[in-house]
């Protein structure tokens, strides 16, 4: 009955039955365990951990480098894009400017052309008017002379005597013509007041 354990009682069991006392270390195993640990520790500390940690570091660096590179590339792309966009905007504004200029120029040209055409038209119209006036004037003068001569001829022939006194004749003709121009002389009136003339007309025809 061992209900009390003293160091002596524990140790005294060892030589009696090695192995029956599992808590007493077999000292060879203890030393051997230390040696084994030392070997494995040396292997792990000198070969395994440095290699793996180096790989981890490199991987870390590679990933970080990759990220930095990607960031660089992205920044570059952004810059290029910004530049491109700036250029595009510039080109667009330039084009707009050119278009605006062209439009203004076109408008100016059109206005100028229109002005010229207008002027030309005006000038032509004016000259035409002038020509027409002149021709009318001429025609009127010619007609006046002609009508006067013809009517004096006619009247002379009808009246039978020469209305040679040019002053009276001329004054008569002028008065008549001016009356004719102002519209005082109506065909009916002419017929009524001067039946001779209508008769002349009738005889004539």
């Amino acid at each position: 009955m061992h209900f009390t354990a003293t160091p002596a009682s524990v140790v005294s069991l060892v030589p009696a039955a090695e192995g029956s006392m599992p808590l007493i270390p077999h000292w060879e195993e203890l030393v051997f365990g230390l040696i084994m640990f030392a070997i494995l520790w040396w292997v792990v500390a000198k070969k395994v951990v440095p290699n793996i940690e180096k790989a981890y570091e490199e991987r870390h660096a590679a990933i970080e480098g990759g990220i930095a590179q990607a960031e660089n590339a992205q920044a570059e792309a952004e810059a290029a894009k910004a530049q491109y966009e700036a250029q595009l905007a510039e080109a667009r504004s330039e084009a707009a400017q050119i278009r605006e200029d062209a439009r203004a120029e076109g408008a100016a040209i059109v206005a100028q052309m229109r002005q010229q055409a207008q002027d030309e038209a005006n000038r032509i119209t004016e000259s035409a008017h002038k020509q027409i006036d002149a021709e009318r004037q001429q025609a009127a003068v010619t007609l006046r002379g002609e009508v006067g001569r013809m009517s004096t001829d006619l009247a002379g022939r009808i009246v039978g005597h020469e209305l040679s006194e040019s002053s009276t004749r001329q004054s008569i003709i002028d008065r008549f013509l001016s009356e004719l121009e102002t519209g005082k002389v109506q065909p009916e009136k002419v017929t009524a007041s001067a039946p001779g003339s209508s008769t002349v007309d009738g005889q004539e025809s």
Partner: protein
Amino acid sequence: MTLTAPASWVGTAPTASGGGEGYQTPTPEIFWQPLFELGPITVTNQMAWAAIITAALSFAMIALSKNAAVVPGKGQWLFENFYNLPRNTIARDMIGTRHFRQYLPLIVTLFTMVLFFNLAGSFFGSMMPVTSKIGFPIALTLVVYVVYHWIGVKKHGLGGYFKHMVPGGLPKAVVPVIFPLELITYFITRPLTLALRLFGNMFAGHMLIYLFVTGAFYFLIEGDILLKLVSLPTFLMAGVMLVFELLVQFLQAFVFALLTASYIAGALADDH
């Protein structure tokens, strides 16, 4: 019920068994497996397996990490997955990102070594966890013990280290009570539990499996019809225990490394 202890730590056979001289439950003697003697040194089975596992681990780890590249191959990828557990989950999370690289070899070595020494209980044809002999846990614990005290003394100085043990912000009156407790924790409880936890788990687990397997064989060979039937669930139970032991073996390796990291972190901490 008599309390007479047998000469060795032996349980008793199930009295229900009808067969012959009865069943001898496994004793701690099953762990004593001397191979040969070299002068005064008795080389045991566990020592041989420790050497084999250490050699295999060394070669495997060197081979897998020799050509460590930025883009890992298949082997390196597998090894990295294994390596990341002690590196990230244990060392980095416990010690902190600033200092953990320095103690990485220690943590990785401890984790790997304990894990494979434990796994020897289920693999490698040894069917005997190397760590079920207390010499190996004690050896590893000695290393941890020396390392974390050395780190503490180096960081805080000898007096500062003892002062550091007492949590800051305590009332003056409590300090004399706490200090011996902390002293016991630092110098006795920690190494003792660290070694004994590993040893006890491996020892008891292996013994349990041994008990189930030998018991099942005993039932099968010596028992009558009823006991032969009982042997089947017993075998099943042995299988279940084997799987459970796998979990425990891994967990104990994890705990060993985790506690080591936590002790180192505690010694490194600026303020307790």
